[in-house]
């Protein structure tokens, strides 16, 4: 790759960089304007969550799971309580399942609209960024009204949910969603018709279908490459088995398609919330569960806004968990991300990076590192490059 005088230069992105909203470091080997190598350095937000799970009680772990990630806090708690309920064999009341579904879809709405704003911001389209974040605020307020907090809803508990959605709350949700739907359609139209945005997004960050499957991509990244794969449909949890919906996918394999997938999923989520509100059964919110969990193991999966989230729990009959494992969607998408980044322009890096909707605190949860003293280490991507650049 290196030719004569024009050698490559190394351009660092992060840990503090305007394109990255969370601390993570990527070093790009750049030849002219083309990226020829990527070296991510991870772990700036490692907190050792998996080890921490082992020293807390099951109830305390709900709130720890919630704090693995801010944006998908409900996805993590849902995944956690499902795993524990699975071992316990607890039958969650149907109303609780519906409430979980409604909150999950509202969370997807605000997460995806956040992403639309970020994507616009990454290509310098700040006006759209401001509009989407303004309208996202309505969903955040709605969630605050339902759950008592904008970000950490704390709705889930082992055996059900903690708060009910009242009929007032339901009508509030409906009216907010009516307004939000109009806005979302407008933004979806803008993103698909605005020429300057199309120029930046179309054909950028190509991830072919087979590569996406091989490298284990998940979520909208995978569905933007034409694979119909959604945990909500393939492995229904909560009330998803009873809510009709079609898995959205697009064949374009580029950032634009990931955008379209997310925009359409937002519209679909609105319909799903409406359906759930119409069909929500009455009944109890939760069942009583014992504090100690009998020995057993469970795999729990949830479709977080960013993709497939998996938790594995192994219990030993005490009040504390034996082993807890979290696999967040961002980690699964990193190999695919590196594949798409190589060969792109510097100018396209932010958009491609943002294209997988990275959530680094989710990804970095695994190890234990003091945030103040943690140092950096190089994650040499040599082997990934060998695999991905053929």
């Amino acid at each position, binding site marked *: 790759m290196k030719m004569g005088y024009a050698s490559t*230069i*190394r*351009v*660092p992105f992060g840990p503090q*960089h*305007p*394109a990255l909203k969370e601390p993570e470091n990527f070093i790009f080997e750049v030849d002219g*304007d083309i990226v020829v190598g990527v070296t991510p350095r991870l772990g700036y937000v490692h907190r050792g969550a998996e080890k921490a799970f082992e020293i807390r009680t099951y109830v305390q772990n709900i709130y720890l799971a919630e704090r693995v990630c801010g944006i998908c806090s409900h996805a993590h708690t849902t995944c956690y309580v499902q795993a524990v309920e699975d071992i316990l064999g607890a039958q969650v009341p149907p109303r609780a399942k519906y409430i979980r579904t409604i909150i999950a879809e509202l969370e997807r709405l605000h997460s995806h609209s956040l992403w639309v704003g970020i994507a*616009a*911001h*990454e*290509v*310098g*389209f*700040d*006006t759209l960024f*401001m*509009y989407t974040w*303004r309208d996202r605020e309505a969903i955040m307020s709605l969630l605050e009204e339902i759950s008592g907090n904008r970000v950490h809803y704390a709705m889930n508990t082992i055996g059900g949910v903690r708060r009910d959605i009242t009929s007032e709350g339901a009508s509030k949700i409906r009216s907010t969603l009516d307004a939000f739907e109009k806005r979302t359609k407008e933004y979806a139209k803008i993103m698909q018709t*605005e020429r*300057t*945005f199309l*120029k*930046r997004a179309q054909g950028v960050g190509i991830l072919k279908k087979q590569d996406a499957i091989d490298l284990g991509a998940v979520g909208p990244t995978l569905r933007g490459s034409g694979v119909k794969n959604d945990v909500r449909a393939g492995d229904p949890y909560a009330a998803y088995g009873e809510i009709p919906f079609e898995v959205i996918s697009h064949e374009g394999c580029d950032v634009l398609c990931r955008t379209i997938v997310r925009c359409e999923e937002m519209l679909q989520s609105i319909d799903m919330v409406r359906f759930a509100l119409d069909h929500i059964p009455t009944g109890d919110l939760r069942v009583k569960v014992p504090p100690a969990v009998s020995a057993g193991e469970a795999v729990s999966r949830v479709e977080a806004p960013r993709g497939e989230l998996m938790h594995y729990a192994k219990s030993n009959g005490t009040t504390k968990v034996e082993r807890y494992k979290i696999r967040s969607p961002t980690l699964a998408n990193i190999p695919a991300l590196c594949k798409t980044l190589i060969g792109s*322009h*510097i*100018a*396209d*890096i*932010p958009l491609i990076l943002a294209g997988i909707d990275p959530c680094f605190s989710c990804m970095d949860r695994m190890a234990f590192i003091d945030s103040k003293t943690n140092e950096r280490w190089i994650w040499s991507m040599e082997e990934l490059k060998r695999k991905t650049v053929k």
Partner: protein
Amino acid sequence: MVDGGAEKENCEMTPYEVFQLLVFPGLTLLFVLAFFYEWIDRKFFARLQNRYGPLYTGPFGLFQPVADFVKLLGKEDIVPLACDKLVFALTPIFYFALPLTALFVVPISESTGLIAFEGDLIFVMFIFTMLVVTVFLAGWSSASRFGIIGGVRAALEMLSYEIPLGLAMVGPAIAAGSLSISAIANWQSSHLVWSIFLQPIGFAVLIVGLLAELEFVPFDIPEADTEIVAGWRTEFSGRKLALFKVGRDLELVLASAIVAALYLGGAQALGPIPAIVSFLIKTVIVVLLLTFLRAVFARFRIDQMTAGMWKYLLPIAIFQIVLIQFGIGR
């Protein structure tokens, strides 16, 4: 610097001329205008995005740009070890002085500029080019990856938009038969028609070129914040950054003044409205137009921008000149 140079040329200056140079319509007015136009730009941009914009410093946040400037002056001035110290120190001064110099030849409060001379249009074009050279040097001298990439991008951008920009500025000059900005403005007022109506294509080309010159979205490629942090300005801080900021504001004033002079009839008195007021109205409209345009686009990639400029903007600009040659629009 600037007035010093001017003073040497006209050794026998009357007190009125000194007043003109230093206060009205000279340095003081230009600074006030620079801060005022930055405020307009920020406020209008914010309103387009459904925000407030500057709000607390002074009425409607009018003094926010001044406050920012003063704050930056007091900040620590960090000089990177690896940088080219001399160039690094000089470029902010040049970036600040160049648009100021150019503004003296543009008519502001009367029908001729302060130091207007035949051929000053070429001088302004030269200043526009020099600004980009300064930007390139600033980026290069800072010896930072982001700075260098930003500087190179700025230079590359200039190669693509400079010719259409020049052609768009030459259009009214051909029509007026003079290379003096004041003469072009006077020609428009004496013929009772503005060049924008005669040469609308040229006006559009000029606006696009100025968007690129001012590094506004969609052409803010050299300082694209999500890509290369602050581009060529990354390493500058404190006083130097303050000078760059004022330089950018002065450049905005210069750009709007050039558009007003070449295409909107310049500082001409319209009936009871004095020249300065008509100049202000016209330039504010131009600023609003530039701000609006920067709000509704996404950023281009450098290759897309270069290709677009050569493929579309240049032929359009040439077409306008050809039209003028055939007598249409003069």
